[in-house]
């Protein structure tokens, strides 16, 4: 089965690139599967493993070879600059679309309105929602009132209508799409757990020792960590506050922020203002391989997210798979993760108090922490096994092939 895979690849700084590469490598383990990548034309892929194993073309070359593919897989998120090039192809060459976010509003806005084509944006809105004041909605989104509006008007309707199948990563996602398009063929396939650049089985203890050595951490340092791109709705203020609350009783603690903050968010100033500069390390952007390995150093990983745009965050899956005790927000896209395999904190008025109490409890009770970490790791190995999930992707693509 020959598959055309429209995706983003490294060095694009997005979890979607990392995860597309991992999944593609797992899918071609099946001897019957061949994958060719089709990417945007404004960067050069740099992952050697991907460059060696796959043919990579720019999207301009697809139309001439479209007939050669049994199935097309579109890897779509709500980032116009990264994913916008796929939209036109989804309508012209229907295939299976992986919807990483439950709204494509900003992506559609980027490729229409923000490029001066207001009529195309209005036409999209009219197609999906009838007679609405599209330009007023766009104005509100641009002025920062967007989180609710982009979910209310997700603009995935035409994409779903044009596609042969849709893949989402949660039951919540499936229900949201079926509520708008009841006859769509929507498949729920969870995220696969894998470590970039590693094909051998993972040895969490060895990785933990290596990762901690790379940060010069002693064996008894209590390490809290958060990973990814830091934006205000990841509630780092609450996480740092809970960490600061812990310090008088656990002075030998560190907080590792593995990733970088968006330019609008002055995280460094915030840390300094809280007097935590000596205890917090921000690594900055790291290639996927190093970025993933750093997570193994954490005793507790925190990944809060609220409000969300419907996608299932990948970081908690990786943290849990590595055997790190993980704290997440109790939000709909993470409903499948059971309380006990990780710690789910509701994003309500009690969030800060809950986080403080839980973090203190975890620092005081290493056995409790290890039990959650063990449960999480076992849960991920049973439900997010990459070999099984790659097969499910292949199966879904074969159902919706030519």
């Amino acid at each position, binding site marked *: 089965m020959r598959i055309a895979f429209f995706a983003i690849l490294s060095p694009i700084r997005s979890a979607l690139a990392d995860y597309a590469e991992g999944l593609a490598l797992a899918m071609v383990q099946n001897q019957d599967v061949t994958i060719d990548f089709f990417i945007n034309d404004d960067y050069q892929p740099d992952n050697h493993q991907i460059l060696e194993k796959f043919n990579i073309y720019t999207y301009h070359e697809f139309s001439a070879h479209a007939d050669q593919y049994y199935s097309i897989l579109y890897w779509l998120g709500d980032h116009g600059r990264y994913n916008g090039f796929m939209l036109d192809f989804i309508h012209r060459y229907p295939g299976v679309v992986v919807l990483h976010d439950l709204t494509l509003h900003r992506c559609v806005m980027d490729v229409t309105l923000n490029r001066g084509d207001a009529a195309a944006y209005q036409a999209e809105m009219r197609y999906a929602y009838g007679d609405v004041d599209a330009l007023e909605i766009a104005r509100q989104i641009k002025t920062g009132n967007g989180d609710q509006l982009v979910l209310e008007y997700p603009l995935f309707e035409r994409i779903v209508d044009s596609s042969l199948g849709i893949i989402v990563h949660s039951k919540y996602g499936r229900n949201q799409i079926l509520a708008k398009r009841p006859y769509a063929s929507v498949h729920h396939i969870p995220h696969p757990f894998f470590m970039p650049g590693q094909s051998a089985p993972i040895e969490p203890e060895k990785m933990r020792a290596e990762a901690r050595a790379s940060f010069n951490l002693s064996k008894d340092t209590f390490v809290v960590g958060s990973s990814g791109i830091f934006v205000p709705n990841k509630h780092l*203020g609450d996480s740092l*506050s809970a960490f*600061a*609350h812990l*310090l*008088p009783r656990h*002075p030998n603690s560190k907080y590792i922020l593995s990733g970088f903050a968006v330019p609008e968010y002055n995280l460094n100033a915030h840390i300094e*203002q*809280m*007097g*935590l500069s000596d205890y917090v390390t921000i690594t900055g952007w790291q290639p996927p391989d190093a970025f993933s390995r750093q997570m193994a150093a954490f005793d507790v990983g925190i990944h809060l997210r609220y409000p969300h745009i419907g996608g299932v965050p990948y970081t908690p899956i990786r943290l849990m798979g590595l055997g790190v005790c993980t704290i997440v927000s109790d939000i709909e896209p993470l409903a499948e993760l*059971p*309380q*006990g*395999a990780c*710690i*789910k*904190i*509701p994003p309500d*008025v*009690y969030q800060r*108090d*809950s986080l403080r*109490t*839980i973090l203190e*409890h975890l620092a005081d009770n290493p056995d*409790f922490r290890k*039990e*959650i970490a*063990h*449960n999480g790791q*076992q*849960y991920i190995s*049973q439900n997010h096994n990459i070999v099984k999930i790659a097969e499910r992707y292949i199966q879904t693509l074969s159902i919706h092939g030519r």
Partner: protein
Amino acid sequence: MENELTASIAQTGKQIESILQKVRETSHASSPVRTAIFRRMQQTATINSHWHIAWPHWPPGIRAKVTAASQKIIRRLLQWYIDPIVEQQNQFNQTVVNALQLLADDLAALQTLCQSPSEVQQAKIDRLQRQINTLSRQIQDKD
């Protein structure tokens, strides 16, 4: 193996829920007085179109009993007309209770924020505390 994992997750999950529940109970947002007021509001939010006529006891005297019985009959006959209005009133009452509950939660959160030091203040206190600890240790070492 799978059952063992499910049992372990369920047991640990219970412990986590119990910690989170304790946080909610000890937080300012759940004071006993506030809980009692909301319980009372909840109880009175729902009305029944057949209450209060000869209930819980029939009134004394034949004349009063006959009046009550006729009222009951009339109300039964008008049930088709009264019930939808009562239902609407109940929905409205419930919405008001929910709105008040949300407002009270927000107010309690604001009170908590006002009473406790802000994040920045707390950080400064913690930083000073740590400096005091370090200096105390240095003084002890010198002694």
